[in-house]
């Protein structure tokens, strides 16, 4: 089953194209070229693999590919708010593919008898299967939590002895893995292998239940890395450098995104994976004596009209309310009056890295007006109005001042430095981190309670009707 030089060369070309695909993602202007490079690389990989002489069951391939298109096309048309779930689901598919190929390779080798499963290949296959199946169930759980499926608990699930149970299961898995690697053609090997698969599936599940629903984005990035690494293991098993290169690229991507998210939240990997963060909520309440000042939409509209620089700070609430199109109308109204409008984008605003950017881009807001946190913070003192739209943790000054706060040390957008702050949210409930936000009690802050889409819609109406009088 050795590959011809032509195939090897095609795989090399595809690997280089994958590298360029990710390289071109470094700027919006070249990013679509990156997609084309990725598509070309994948097409080359498929065609040259298929064209190898030992591939004979062509109709099987046609059928499976057709089925892939039938499911894949609709999956690509989900609303943007469902992108995290879709990504998680996709990782489940990817994990399943790697695991199934690994399983097939093992049983094949076992049937063909001694000599086919070298120790090296067995190590690769075991790793491929463990990573693949673990990604499968882990990603399904993550997708479920993100979709807020009712029977999957959002809260972290912990129970006494959790660690001991996990360690025992791990020991069993390692023992079986060593056995099957040393003696891959033993009559019992398929059974051992099946148990390893079962344990991997279980691990995926156990890995996710102690993590709160809101930490799923970081988990998704880590699962992305696992999916990449299972492709790397497949590459070692099949002696195929294309799989290794592409898998390594994915592994790096998942790792770096997870690190970026952890840094922006000022938390460690360990804390995300075992910290059961969402539980903090009940501990910190206090400050019930404090008062919010509300403002009417009319009043807010008048203030906005007089501003020179308005900074809009979107957060998860904007995504929930799907308010981006109304924000676009607000942006147009303000622009028409010659007011400078900038969007302050916190790296972990929302529930996914880059979440705010895609939503605002969807509403046709030029990306040149989306400003990163570090940059906008230097301009904040000049802002006449900071308009917080469904953001909470990312503008919480406690991160700067309160050492006891769970978000202490997390970099934030300095909304409190603007001359005036309007904050849109539905209630007095806290955000993701489950803590109160001093910003809302500040002297210069006025609340606009209500659904973000509705409130902004009314603001726009005010401005549109008032625009003649101006």
């Amino acid at each position: 089953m050795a590959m011809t030089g032509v195939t090897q060369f095609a795989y090399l070309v595809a690997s280089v194209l994958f590298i360029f695909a990710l390289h071109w993602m470094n700027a919006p202007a070249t990013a679509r070229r990156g997609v084309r490079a990725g598509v070309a690389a994948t097409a080359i990989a498929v065609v040259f693999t298929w064209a190898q002489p030992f591939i004979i069951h062509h109709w099987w391939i046609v059928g499976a590919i057709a089925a892939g298109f039938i499911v894949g096309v609709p999956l690509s048309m989900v609303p943007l708010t469902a992108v995290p779930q879709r990504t998680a689901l996709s990782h489940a598919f990817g994990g399943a593919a790697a695991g199934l190929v690994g399983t097939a390779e093992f049983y094949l080798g076992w049937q063909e008898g001694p000599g086919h499963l070298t120790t090296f290949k067995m190590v690769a296959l075991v790793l491929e299967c463990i990573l693949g199946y673990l990604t499968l169930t882990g990603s399904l759980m993550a997708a479920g939590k993100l979709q807020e499926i009712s029977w999957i608990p959002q809260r972290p699930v912990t129970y006494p002895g959790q660690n001991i149970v996990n360690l025992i299961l791990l020991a069993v898995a390692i023992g079986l893995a060593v056995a099957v690697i040393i003696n891959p053609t033993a009559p019992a090997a398929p059974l051992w292998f099946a148990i390893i698969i079962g344990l991997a599936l279980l691990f995926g599940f156990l890995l996710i239940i102690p993590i709160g629903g809101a930490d799923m984005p970081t988990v998704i990035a880590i699962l992305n890395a696992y999916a990449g690494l299972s492709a790397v293991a497949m590459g070692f098993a099949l002696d195929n450098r294309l799989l290794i290169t592409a898998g390594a690229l994915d592994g790096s991507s998942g790792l770096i995104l997870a690190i970026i998210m952890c840094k922006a939240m000022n938390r460690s990997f360990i804390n995300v994976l075992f910290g059961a963060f969402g539980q903090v909520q009940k501990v910190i309440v206090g400050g019930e004596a404090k008062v919010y000042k509300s403002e009417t939409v009319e009043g807010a509209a008048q203030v906005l009209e007089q501003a020179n620089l308005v900074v809009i700070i979107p957060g998860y609430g904007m995504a929930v309310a799907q308010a981006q199109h109304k924000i676009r109308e607000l942006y147009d109204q303000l622009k028409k009056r010659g007011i400078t409008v900038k969007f302050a984008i916190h790296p972990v605003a929302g529930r996914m890295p880059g979440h705010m950017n895609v939503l605002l881009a969807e509403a046709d807001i030029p990306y040149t007006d989306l400003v990163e946190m570090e940059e906008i913070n230097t301009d904040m003192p000049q802002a006449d109005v900071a308009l917080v739209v469904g953001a909470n943790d990312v503008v919480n000054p406690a991160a700067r001042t309160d050492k006891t706060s769970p978000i202490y040390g997390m970099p934030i957008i300095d909304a409190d430095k603007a001359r005036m702050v309007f904050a849109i949210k539905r209630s007095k409930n806290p955000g993701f981190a489950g803590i109160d936000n001093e910003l809302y009690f500040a002297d210069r802050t006025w609340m606009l309670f209500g659904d973000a889409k509705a409130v902004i819609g009314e603001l726009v109406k005010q401005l549109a009707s008032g625009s003649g009088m101006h």
Partner: protein
Amino acid sequence: MTPDFWPTLFVFVLASLIGLGVIRRVSRLLHTPLMSITNAISAIAVVGSIIVTGSDYPLEIRILGAIALFASMTNIVSGFLITDRMLKMFKTGSKPAGEK
């Protein structure tokens, strides 16, 4: 160790270094599309799936392969399509905005 092990490990290490270098420079604007394009790229497992599905192997092995091929192909199709769909939305302010 197979003779190919060390060269192949080299490939893995170098590819990882490239990955770290390239991904660190991806614009923060594009982190969501980045997640979906890497999702599509990790479906490169399609190579192994095709081999297992199309070779002269026993039926049950090929069934496993076909499921894997279906899963990989789903990721490829949906991953690239949704990435492109998102990227199409990113526009500069230079053109008259709001043509839509």
